[in-house]
C-alpha cells in the first residue's frame, strides 16, 4: 500500500540510458474494494493534466469504483498521477447537474432540454438575422473535451454560423506552444517523444514545474536520475519547486526576463563553439541575425536583467552546450510570461543551433497545460484552423470548403480566429451578444475577475454554460446545460507527444446530463445548418462518425490520423500521429531528416513579427525561400507591461499544486485531493516576510491595481520580491452570502503576448500586507511541491492517511 497523497510520485524504478522504462501499475479502488469486486475495466486516459496517461476505469454495479494505469501504454507504463487515482470520485458527486437550468429573473430554475435548447436557438436565430449576424456569436471552449466534440464545434462555428469568434481556454495554457512551433518549424506538432527521457544525457526545464503538472513524466525523469548514467538537469524557475531542488543547476530568474536569459545562453553556446555549424547551414535560416541579437547579452548583462549570478549563466551554457542528447521542456513560466512566444522560440533556437532535434534523446516538448489542448488546436476549436491549416492560405480554406461542401467565403478567413481575450472584449463592448462557454470556468480562470464577472453579468449578453457543476461561471449564465463527463461518453484525445488515446464510456451520465457532442449536434440539428446543396451540414450522430470525418480533414496534414481507427486504439497502447498507410504504427519523432514544415504551401503561418505580432504576407514569406529550413527567430528583451512600483512593490506569479486541477471543479470534490490542499495560500520568501512582519500562517492581504484577496502565508523557497498564489481557488464551496476574495485572478493583469495572445499570469505588480496573526497555525499549503516549508518550520506533513491507500507495483 502506498499513500499517494504523501508520495505523489510513488516508488522509484530506476533505469539507464536506452533501457525501456520499467512497468509500475498504480491502482486505487474506493471503499476497500479489490480487483475481484470490479465487474469490468473500461479503457480511458487522463483528463486531469496534460500528460495523457492511459488508464482503465473500474466499474461495479453500474458505477465507477476506481482506476488503474495501463501497463501496455507507451506514455505511463502503468503509472498514474494522484489526481487520476482519486479525482474520478467527482463523477459520483451528489451536486452534479442533472437537468438543464434556465434563467428566471435573478434565479436559475430547473427546466428540460426542449426549453433550454429552444431558448438558445430562438436567441441564435434572432441574432443571425441581418448582416454581420455571425459576429454576434462567441464560443469559449476547453482543453478537456474530446477531439470529436471540438471538431463538431469547429464545423458549427466556421461552416454553420461562419464566425471567427471561437477559442479555447487552451489560450491560457498552450497557445504559446503552438505559436512557437509554428514560428520555428512551420506548423504545430511536437518534434519529440516522451521516450526522449529514456535516451537523453541532459534535461532543461524552462519554466516547467513538471513534478506538479505532469507527475508521470517527472517519475520518468526521476527514474533516469536514480539509474546509471543519469542525465544532468537544469531548472529555470523563480520558485524552489521539486524540479529546482532536484536539478544540478537552478536559475531563479526574475519573472518576465526569460528572453534575456536564453539569449545570453545562446551567446555563450555560439561563442564557445558548442553549436553545429553543418546543421545550422543545412537546416536553418536567420543565424546571422540571431548572432547579432544575442551578442548583446553577455553573462553580466543577463545577470543584471534576470538577477542570477553571471557564473551560473556560464555554467548553464556549459551544461546545455556540452550535452550530446539534450531534452528541453517548456511550460507556463515561459508561456504565461513576458515575451512568451519569443522566449519559447529561443529554446527552439537552442536546439536548432545545436542540431538537437529529431533523434532519440534530442527533443523539445513545448508542453500543453491541459489534457486535450492538443485537439483544440488540431481541430480548430481555438485560434487555429482544422488540420493545422493556414488561415491566410486560400487553398487551405478551399480544402475545408470542399470537405464541408460550403462556399469558401462562408468560412471566416479574413484574419486569424479571434482570441479569447478579444472575444470577451467584444462581449464587453456589446457586439458579441451570445457567448457559449463549454467545460471551462472563466469566472475563476481569466485575468482580472471583477471585469470578467461584470461582462458575464451584462443583461444584453446571453450566456450559455455547458458544465458538470454549477460553477462560478454557470451562476452567471442564462442557460446551463448539464454535460456528461469522462467515463460517461466515448471519444479520443491526444497527448503532448502526439499520442492518441480512446476514452470509452464506462457508465451512464447522471439524470438528463448529455455528452457535449450530443449537445453540439442537437444545436446543429435545431439550427438546421445547411451545406451548399441544401443538405444538412452536419449529419453525424455519434463520436465514431465524427472521428472518421475528422480523419479526412486531417489527411495530408501534419496531424494525419488516417491510419487510426477506434478499433486500433482499443486494447493496446496509444498511437502517435502522423499515422497513415505508410506509417501504420504512427511516428515517434518529427523532423528526423531536418526537413521542417516551412514549405509555403504546407506551413500553418506566413509568420509574424515576434515583438508586435504583425502578420507577414504570402509573397513576403515566399521571398524568404525557406525550402524546409527552420526559422531562427531572435528578439531583444523588453520589460513587462507591468513592473513593480512604489504602490505595488512585489511581483505576483500564479500556478498549480500537484493536488488540484484548474478551478477544482473535479479535484475539489475528491476528498483526498481536497484535504491535501483545501484552501488558498500565498508563498513568500522568509526575507520578505520578515521585513513585512509576516510569519507562517498569518493572514495576508495581496492587492494589485485590479483588486485584492486574502490568503494565509507560507514561508518557503520562492525568490525574494516575488509572491506565488495557486490559481485553483474560487468561490463555489464558500457560502454565497459571505464570500471572501481568494481567487488569484482577482489580481492578474489583462495583457497578452503579441503573437500567441496568451495572457500574462506571471507578472502582476502587487502589494502585500499582514491582516491578522495566524497564532502559530500553519497555512493550508501542502508541504509537498513548490510550497514545501523549510525542514525546521514545524509544519505537519501533508498525508492522505488510510483513505488514500493505493497500490503500486509490477504486475
Amino acid at each position: 500500500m502506498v499513500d499517494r497523497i504523501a508520495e505523489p510520485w510513488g516508488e522509484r524504478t530506476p533505469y539507464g540510458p536506452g533501457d525501456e522504462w520499467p512497468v509500475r501499475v498504480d491502482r486505487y479502488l474506493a471503499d476497500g474494494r479489490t480487483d475481484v469486486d470490479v465487474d469490468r475495466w473500461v479503457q480511458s486516459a487522463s483528463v486531469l493534466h496534460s500528460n495523457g496517461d492511459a488508464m482503465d476505469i473500474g466499474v461495479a454495479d453500474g458505477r465507477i469504483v476506481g482506476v488503474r494505469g495501463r501497463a501496455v501504454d507507451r506514455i505511463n507504463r502503468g503509472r498514474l498521477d494522484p489526481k487520476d487515482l482519486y479525482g474520478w470520485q467527482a463523477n459520483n458527486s451528489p451536486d452534479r447537474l442533472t437537468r438543464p437550468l434556465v434563467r428566471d429573473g435573478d434565479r436559475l430554475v430547473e427546466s428540460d432540454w426542449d426549453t433550454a435548447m429552444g431558448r438558445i436557438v430562438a436567441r441564435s436565430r434572432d441574432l443571425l438575422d441581418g448582416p454581420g449576424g455571425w459576429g454576434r456569436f462567441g464560443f469559449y471552449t476547453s482543453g478537456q473535451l474530446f477531439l470529436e466534440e471540438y471538431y463538431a464545434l469547429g464545423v458549427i462555428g466556421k461552416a454553420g454560423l461562419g464566425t471567427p469568434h471561437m477559442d479555447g481556454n487552451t489560450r491560457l495554457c498552450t497557445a504559446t506552444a503552438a505559436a512557437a512551433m509554428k514560428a520555428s518549424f512551420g506548423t504545430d506538432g511536437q518534434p519529440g517523444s516522451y521516450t526522449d527521457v529514456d535516451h537523453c544525457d541532459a534535461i532543461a526545464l524552462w519554466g516547467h514545474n513538471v513534478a506538479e503538472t505532469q507527475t508521470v513524466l517527472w517519475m520518468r525523469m526521476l527514474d533516469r536520475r536514480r539509474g546509471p548514467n543519469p542525465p544532468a538537469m537544469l531548472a529555470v524557475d523563480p520558485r524552489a519547486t521539486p524540479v529546482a531542488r532536484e536539478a544540478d543547476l537552478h536559475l531563479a530568474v526574475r519573472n518576465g526576463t526569460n528572453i534575456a536569459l536564453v539569449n545570453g545562453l545562446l551567446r555563450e553556446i555560439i561563442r564557445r563553439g558548442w553549436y553545429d555549424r553543418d546543421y545550422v547551414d543545412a537546416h536553418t535560416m536567420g543565424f546571422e541575425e540571431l548572432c547579432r541579437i544575442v551578442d548583446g547579452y553577455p553573462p553580466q548583462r543577463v545577470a543584471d536583467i534576470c538577477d542570477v549570478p553571471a557564473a551560473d549563466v556560464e555554467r548553464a551554457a556549459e551544461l546545455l552546450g556540452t550535452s550530446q542528447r539534450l531534452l528541453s521542456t517548456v511550460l507556463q513560466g515561459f508561456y504565461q510570461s513576458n515575451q512568451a512566444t519569443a522566449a519559447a522560440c529561443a529554446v527552439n533556437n537552442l536546439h536548432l543551433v545545436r542540431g538537437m532535434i529529431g533523434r532519440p534523446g534530442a527533443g523539445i516538448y513545448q508542453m500543453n497545460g491541459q489534457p486535450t489542448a492538443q485537439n483544440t488546436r488540431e481541430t480548430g476549436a481555438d485560434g487555429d484552423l482544422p488540420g493545422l491549416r493556414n488561415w491566410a492560405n486560400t487553398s487551405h480554406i478551399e480544402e475545408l470548403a470542399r470537405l464541408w461542401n460550403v462556399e469558401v467565403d462562408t468560412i471566416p478567413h479574413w484574419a486569424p480566429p479571434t482570441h479569447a481575450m478579444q472575444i470577451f472584449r467584444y462581449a464587453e463592448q456589446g457586439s458579441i451578444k451570445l457567448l457559449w462557454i463549454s467545460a471551462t470556468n472563466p469566472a475563476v480562470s481569466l485575468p482580472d475577475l471583477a471585469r470578467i464577472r461584470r461582462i458575464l453579468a451584462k443583461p444584453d449578453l446571453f450566456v450559455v454554460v455547458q458544465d458538470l457543476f454549477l460553477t462560478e461561471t454557470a451562476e452567471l449564465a442564462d442557460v446551463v446545460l448539464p454535460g456528461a463527463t469522462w467515463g460517461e461518453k466515448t471519444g479520443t484525445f491526444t497527448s503532448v507527444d502526439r499520442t492518441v488515446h480512446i476514452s470509452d464510456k464506462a457508465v451512464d451520465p447522471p439524470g438528463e446530463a448529455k455528452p457535449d457532442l450530443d449537445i453540439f449536434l442537437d444545436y446543429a440539428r435545431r439550427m438546421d445548418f445547411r451545406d451548399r446543396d441544401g443538405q444538412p451540414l452536419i449529419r453525424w450522430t455519434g463520436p465514431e462518425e465524427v472521428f472518421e470525418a475528422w480523419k479526412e480533414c486531417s489527411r495530408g496534414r501534419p496531424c494525419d490520423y488516417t491510419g487510426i481507427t477506434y478499433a486500433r486504439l482499443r486494447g493496446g497502447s496509444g498511437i502517435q500521429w502522423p499515422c497513415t498507410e505508410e506509417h501504420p504504427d504512427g511516428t515517434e519523432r518529427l523532423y528526423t531528416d531536418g526537413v521542417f514544415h516551412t514549405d509555403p504551401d504546407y506551413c500553418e503561418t506566413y509568420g509574424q513579427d515576434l515583438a508586435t505580432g504583425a502578420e507577414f504576407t504570402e509573397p513576403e514569406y515566399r521571398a524568404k525561400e525557406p525550402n524546409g529550413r527552420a526559422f531562427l527567430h531572435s528578439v531583444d528583451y523588453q520589460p513587462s507591461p507591468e513592473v513593480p512600483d512604489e504602490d505595488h512593490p512585489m511581483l505576483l506569479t500564479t500556478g498549480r499544486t500537484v493536488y488540484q486541477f484548474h478551478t477544482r471543479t473535479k479535484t475539489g470534490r475528491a476528498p483526498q485531493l481536497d484535504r491535501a490542499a483545501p484552501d488558498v495560500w500565498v508563498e513568500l520568501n522568509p526575507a520578505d516576510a520578515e521585513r513585512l512582519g509576516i510569519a507562517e500562517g498569518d493572514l495576508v492581504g495581496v492587492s494589485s491595481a485590479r483588486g485584492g484577496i486574502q490568503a494565509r502565508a507560507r514561508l518557503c523557497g520562492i525568490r525574494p520580491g516575488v509572491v506565488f498564489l495557486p490559481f485553483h481557488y474560487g468561490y463555489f464551496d464558500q457560502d454565497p452570502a459571505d464570500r471572501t476574495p481568494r481567487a488569484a485572478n482577482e489580481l492578474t493583469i489583462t495583457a497578452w503576448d503579441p503573437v500567441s495572445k496568451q495572457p500574462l499570469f506571471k507578472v502582476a505588480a502587487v502589494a502585500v500586507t499582514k491582516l491578522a496573526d495566524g497564532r502559530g497555525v500553519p497555512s493550508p499549503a501542502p508541504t509537498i511541491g513548490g510550497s514545501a516549508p523549510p525542514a525546521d518550520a514545524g509544519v505537519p506533513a501533508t498525508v492522505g492517511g488510510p483513505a488514500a491507500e493505493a497500490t503500486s507495483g509490477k504486475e
Partner: protein
Amino acid sequence: MHLAHYLGLLHRAQVNLAEAFRQVGDAHAEEPDVHHLCHQQAKRCAAYAERLRPFAARYSEDAPAEPDRLHSQLFTGTRTGGIGLLRDLQDLYLMAAECDITWTVVGQAAYGVRDEDLLAVVRDCEGETAMQLTWLRTRMKAAAPQALVVAD
C-alpha cells in the same frame, strides 16, 4: 543642399508619431494590446527622432531657408469606441507611412552625400517603421469586420 529640410521633416514626423502613439495608447487603454504596443512604439519613434538630431545639426549650416508647406498635419486627436479605434489606428498608419517614405528619401540623400553614419541610422529605422505599418495593418484588418459590420 536641401537635405537638412528633409531631416527636419523626418524629425518632426517621428516626434509627432511618437506623441500620436502615446495619445492613441492612452485613449484606448481598454484594448490592452493597443495600449501596450502603442506606448512601446512611441518610445521607439522618440528614439529615432533623437538619432536624427546630430545629422540635422551637421547639415543645417548648408541649408537655405525652409520651403513653404514642408510639414503636414495628419493627427488632430483621438476618438472613442470600435470605429474610433479603427480611425485612430488609420491616422497612425498614415503618419507612419509618411515617416516610411521620408526615411526612403533621406536614405537616398545619404547615398548622395556619401554619409555612412546617416545610412546606418536609416537602415536601422526604416525597417522598424515598416514593421509599425505592418502591425497597424494587421490590427486594423482584424478589427474592421466587427467594427464596421457587426457593432451596433
